[in-house]
């Protein structure tokens, strides 16, 4: 009982603190937002450095990393650059208008894949070869993105009460995530019979356990694929 009262008084204290400081407190203020973006995008850009050097550690989905890899292999960076840059642009606009920056499109794809593709296409490899430079490049880009967002917010959000269709995009984003599970089972079944069986079992078990079907399908495919390997050719 005493611990409960202690907790309640604790809450009251934190809540009053929040109310007073929301716009001035470092952790909530507008001016600190670019710093958080800079930290995150510094890490993400350095993750792309890891991928460039060690082939591990890119903060993105296989299909999007594959676009960058296609460029590294000599097939041209156009796809990765255009995809990343347009996502970055769209998400900066959307993020400042709705109050939530989508880090997947803006930082992970835009700064993590699009910008490296543009740099590599122009023959600039240093920010990707060097870890320290990668951290600095990412941080600088993040600061710019953060300030642009805060800037757009100042000029738009106060003048408009639109959410710019954020709810619609949220729904579509969730709906497309659901497709991944079945798609993995389908492509596993096309890869080989044992892998297909493995992914079916994994997906079914995960479904019963109320876990994401995609995870089970991958695990099942990998377990049976380890027993009955296939070649890359």
């Amino acid at each position, binding site marked *: 009982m005493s611990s409960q009262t202690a907790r309640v008084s604790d809450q009251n204290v934190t809540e009053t603190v929040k109310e007073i400081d929301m716009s001035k407190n470092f952790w909530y203020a507008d001016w600190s937002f670019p710093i958080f973006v800079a930290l995150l995008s510094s890490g993400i850009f350095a993750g792309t450095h890891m991928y460039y050097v060690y082939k591990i550690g890119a903060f993105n989905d296989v299909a999007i990393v594959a676009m960058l890899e296609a460029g590294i292999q000599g097939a041209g960076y156009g796809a990765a650059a255009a995809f990343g840059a347009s996502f970055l642009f769209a998400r900066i606009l959307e993020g400042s208008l709705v109050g939530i920056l989508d880090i997947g499109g803006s930082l992970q794809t835009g700064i993590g894949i699009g910008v490296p593709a543009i740099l590599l296409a122009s023959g600039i490899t240093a920010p990707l070869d060097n870890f320290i430079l990668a951290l600095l490049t990412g941080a600088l880009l993040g600061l710019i993105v953060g300030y642009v967002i805060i800037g757009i917010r100042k000029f738009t959000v106060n003048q*408009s009460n639109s959410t710019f269709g954020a709810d619609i995009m949220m729904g579509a984003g969730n709906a497309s995530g659901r497709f991944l599970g079945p798609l993995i089972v389908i492509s596993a079944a096309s890869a080989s019979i044992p892998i297909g069986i493995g992914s079916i079992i994994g997906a079914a078990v995960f479904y019963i356990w109320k876990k994401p079907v995609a995870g089970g399908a991958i695990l099942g495919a990998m377990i049976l694929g380890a027993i009955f390997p296939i070649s890359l050719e």
Partner: protein
Amino acid sequence: MEVVEIAIKSIIIGALVGIGVGAGAARMFHAPKVQGMGAFRTLGELNACAGDAASHFSFGLGFFFNAWASSVGAGAFTQDVDHRIIPNWAASVLMRKGKRPEDTLHDPKKMGIVGAIIGMIVVAFLNLTASAIPESLQAIAVKVLVPAANLLINPVMPVIFWLAALDAGKRSGFWGTVFGGAAHLIMGNAVPGVVLGILIGKGVDDSGWNRVTKTLITSVILLFVLSAFFRGFDIRLLESMYLETPGWLKDLHKLLGLEVK
């Protein structure tokens, strides 16, 4: 030696990413008053776990396996490390012993610090174990995950976003179709175009053609024109219409350092 190097870099990267993701996620709960970062689906999922530490942990774990498999196979963490694993695990650590989400999950300071710790562990684990796993497993990921993800990116996601735009009303449907189609022609994927179409359509629905929406559509058109030019779309268009490409256009492309066939 390379292992030590990877470990040190991973810890630095994990800490940077973790603090950003953790603080950004907590700030989302105060949006739109406070500018947050993360994703709408992250916010929804964090709410769906209803402040239950075990739910947050197992939700993160499901995606952790996914991320692990993808890292092993293709060196790609998946976006879920930032979107789901770090925020949910940070929340589950903070909320053990039944603490209220208002004092934990919604506090950028606590989420940032715990996120940094989780980030270090997760990134180091993924980078180190992935480099220690045999190549035969890589074949499976490449044969299974890559085709599935490619199907998702094209055509599944464009179609879903497009249908959502069509269902969202006349303006979104119209601009989504125009920009979505143009985006596929120019960039090879319709999603960015459809998203911009929805932004414009709903923006105009809600507040009419004001300064904000006019600036928005101008910048979107500018984006399309520029990316069309830089991807050589103008020249491909002329060629596929069996027209002669004028010399000055080729020179302009060359001047900007772009190869023209």
